[in-house]
């Protein structure tokens, strides 16, 4: 029943995507509403908990997507994989930019808060647990960390993750397997 619902939802989103490619603004808005929250959360978890700000990187990602959308060919799943691929690349760009940027000499405590955007993890009940698991995942090798984030937060399938990371599905499965083994080892070591 749930599978049938997800299939029909995917079909509906396929139609929405086709209309968005043709230039329908409302359909593009629907796509954005369906995909942006998870994308922002993926970027938030992947990019050191909001540094660089996930919303900024997500905006850059969507701008790039909008620019290349008329040339996109594929269905909704392909689009999702492509979106996360663009998001990964923009995250890498942002990280490089941040590394090149000179460090601020002003003490952070002297700056008045300007109503910064809310922390994406605010609504989560086990916030401490969330931060801990994100830290542990980020401590893994980059590919393993990324594959876990894409699969769990981005909710991508193995095939979609493979497209987003430009790897084969089998390589993704192996990466997930190794990442889980490493993570269990880390958690077990801490608990011991």
């Amino acid at each position, binding site marked *: 029943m749930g599978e049938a619902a997800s299939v029909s939802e995917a079909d509906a989103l396929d139609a929405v995507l086709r209309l968005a490619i043709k230039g329908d603004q409302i359909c593009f808005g629907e796509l954005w509403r369906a995909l942006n929250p998870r994308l922002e959360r993926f970027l938030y978890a992947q990019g050191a908990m909001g540094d660089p700000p996930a919303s900024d990187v997500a905006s850059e990602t969507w701008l790039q997507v*909008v620019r290349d959308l008329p040339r996109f060919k594929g269905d909704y799943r392909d689009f999702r994989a492509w979106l996360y691929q663009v998001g990964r690349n923009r995250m890498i760009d942002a990280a490089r930019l941040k590394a090149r940027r000179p460090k601020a000499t002003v003490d952070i405590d002297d700056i008045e808060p300007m109503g910064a955007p809310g922390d994406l993890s605010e609504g989560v009940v086990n916030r401490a647990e969330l931060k801990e698991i994100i830290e542990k995942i980020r401590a893994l090798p980059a590919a393993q960390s990324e594959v876990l984030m894409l699969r769990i937060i981005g909710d991508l399938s*193995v095939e979609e993750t493979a497209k987003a990371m430009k790897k084969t599905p089998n390589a993704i499965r192996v990466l997930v397997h190794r990442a889980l083994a490493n993570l269990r080892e880390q958690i077990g070591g801490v608990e011991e």
Partner: protein
Amino acid sequence: MSNLWAWLRNKIAPHDAYVTVSTQLGDDLAGEPIFAALREFASSPLLPSAVPVLLLEAFNASQKRVNRRRKIRAGSGALFGVAILIPSLAYAGVLPSPVSRIVQRVFNVISLPIQIPSVAAPSPSASESNSDELTPGSSNEAPDGEQSQSPNEVQTRKPSSESSPETNSNSDSESSTLPLIGDGGAGAHDEHGAQSVIPALDSNLSVRGSVEVDGLPSISGLSDGLDGSQPSTSPGASETDQVSGN
């Protein structure tokens, strides 16, 4: 044979094992309790948000750009098609004669070599006199002597008259004057050849030479101008000019 098979199996086995293991790994993330908090974070209720205006503007701009590009591509394709089709139809004789004539004229203009402007200033009167010289009605035997030119006059005025744009643009006068220069009638459209040949001939010859057109009688007496006497244009000459002028 069996050894070969065993060797192949040993070679292939690691890859097989890799594929088997990797496909059997399956979706072991689904029930993993480690990621409960992460899953909760990913699927937590979202604040209703609107699409940023900047993003919508970028979307519209992108669509406009795509539409413009599509139109330009379609327009250039159509132009290319017309540019190919119309000459083809004109040469096939499908198009009406005025259109065919226009196409032919355009083709003639395109196929003409580029003319390098000469140093001498163009003199429209000289070209007029040359064209008059060759028309049957106004031969060199003008009674008052204004239209008739001595060989020396022709020698001095010929280069400037040849380089005048009027003479070059007038294909009728070209087809009749250029064979007179003495290049054997080859290249009636070769203005450069005319310009380069005439000064070389000026020292020895006047403009009047013998006209030889295939299938037509030659103009006799034109070479008489070498000795400075008035040439007598035969009736055949006027016929020749008319034919070549047409």
